[in-house]
């Protein structure tokens, strides 16, 4: 029966820090012996293994008993936890955005075969999962280090000297969720016209000039550009769908915000492909020479540089729009909710 107490005390002890272990073990043992003796007197029977087991059970599981002697320990404590959660959310949203763009670039570069597209999607999913876990791990690590190493930072937050007047003002932001009907109708009409022209009469878009009594044209877009056409069609179809949903709902909702992220991400991937791929402009030095344009080499260089700059600007704008949409999804919504709750 002593054996049971020895085993119990040892099991509690191994969960305790070394410096206090022997002392707490001694105290627990002494208490258990008192309890056993007391039980033996009250039950009028000698101490045996059953009684010892009963008393130990009453005293509690070794893990629970050991825990009661330890201070509460956190990897990330309650003071840091809200900040931790915020950083995790932001990091994961950014990672998701980047993964989405990478996936779309991958699909565009994979070419039209279904097999390679699926392969590229699966690959993106796997690598995004890995990236998300690694981001989470790193954020946890950083916060755990802050929790462990910088207790003073946490103390500051509960400082008695805070001034209520330093509380942030409640600002009612303009309603960014409202949709302009005219804008959406304009988008739809413009997209339909350009889509029809590009798909049905691509040869119309060019520099037209009269020669020997006939109208001749130099196509503006190259063959390379026409290969992007299926993807451009997908992008525009998505844009029109978005415009139609917005017209119907009258307001931006989380669903349409996400759709606009997809649209921008597809646009971003296409812009990237156009920037890094062969020139989308079909105007050549020979074409310009035939037209009698002075300094045709320089002109072609200027046109291509202009297109590249345009594509870069468009890339930056779309990336910025994705970030802004994510921001609206994750922060503006919360502010509004808080305001509604207060109101």
């Amino acid at each position, binding site marked *: 029966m002593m054996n049971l107490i020895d085993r119990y005390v040892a099991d509690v002890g191994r969960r305790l820090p070394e410096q206090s272990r022997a002392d*707490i073990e*001694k*105290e*627990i043992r*002494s*208490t258990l*012996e*008192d*309890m056993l003796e*007391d039980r033996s007197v009250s039950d009028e029977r000698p101490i045996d293994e059953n009684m010892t087991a009963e008393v130990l059970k009453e*005293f*509690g599981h070794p893990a*629970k*008993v050991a825990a*009661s*002697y330890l201070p509460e320990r956190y990897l990330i404590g309650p003071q840091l936890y809200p900040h931790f959660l915020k950083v995790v959310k932001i990091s994961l949203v950014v990672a998701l955005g980047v993964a989405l763009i990478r996936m779309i670039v991958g699909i565009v570069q994979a070419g039209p075969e279904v097999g390679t597209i699926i392969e590229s999607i699966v690959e993106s999913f796997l690598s995004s999962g890995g990236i998300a876990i690694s981001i989470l791990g790193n954020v946890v690590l950083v916060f755990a280090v802050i929790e462990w190493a910088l207790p003073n930072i946490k103390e500051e937050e509960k400082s008695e000297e805070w001034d209520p007047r330093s509380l942030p003002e409640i600002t009612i932001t303009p309603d960014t969720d409202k949709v302009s009907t005219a804008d959406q109708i304009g988008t739809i009409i413009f997209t339909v016209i350009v889509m029809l022209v590009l798909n049905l009469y691509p040869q119309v878009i060019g520099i037209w000039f009269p020669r020997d009594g006939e109208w001749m044209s130099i196509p503006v877009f190259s063959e390379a550009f026409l290969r992007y056409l299926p993807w451009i069609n997908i992008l525009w179809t998505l844009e029109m769908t978005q415009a139609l949903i917005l017209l119907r709902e009258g307001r931006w909702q989380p669903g349409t915000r996400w759709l606009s992220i997809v649209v921008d991400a597809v646009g971003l991937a296409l812009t990237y492909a156009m920037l890094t791929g062969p020139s989308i402009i079909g105007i050549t030095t020979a074409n310009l020479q035939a037209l009698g344009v002075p300094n045709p080499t320089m002109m072609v260089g200027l046109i291509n540089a202009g297109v590249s700059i345009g594509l870069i600007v468009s890339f930056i704008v779309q990336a910025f729009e994705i970030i802004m949409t994510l921001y609206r999804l994750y922060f503006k919504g919360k502010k509004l909710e808080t305001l509604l709750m207060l109101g």
Partner: protein
Amino acid sequence: MTNDMLENTVLELRRGVIVLAVLSQLGKEQYGYSLLKLLSEQGLEIDQGTLYPLLRRLEAQGLLQSVWKLEEARPRRYYVISPEGTQLLTRLKEEWNGIVVMMGAMLERSQS
């Protein structure tokens, strides 16, 4: 209202008086188990997992003093209130009396 809810609320109420109760009983030295029984005899049941670690904490804060004694071939750790603990006990008693008067009046007013 469930029984659990009642039990938890009562537990919460009693938790607040444990330190006062423990300090009040340690004018005379007691070992852990004898203190547990002493409190229990007077109607305050405290979980062992709460009392023993609490005694160590109060000692670490300087409110109690302890000494190991060998009795009946068994070592026992005896706790007794320290001078600092006695000062705190005086203040806590005043607070407690204030709370009893204040809550009594509050509950009476709410009934009428």
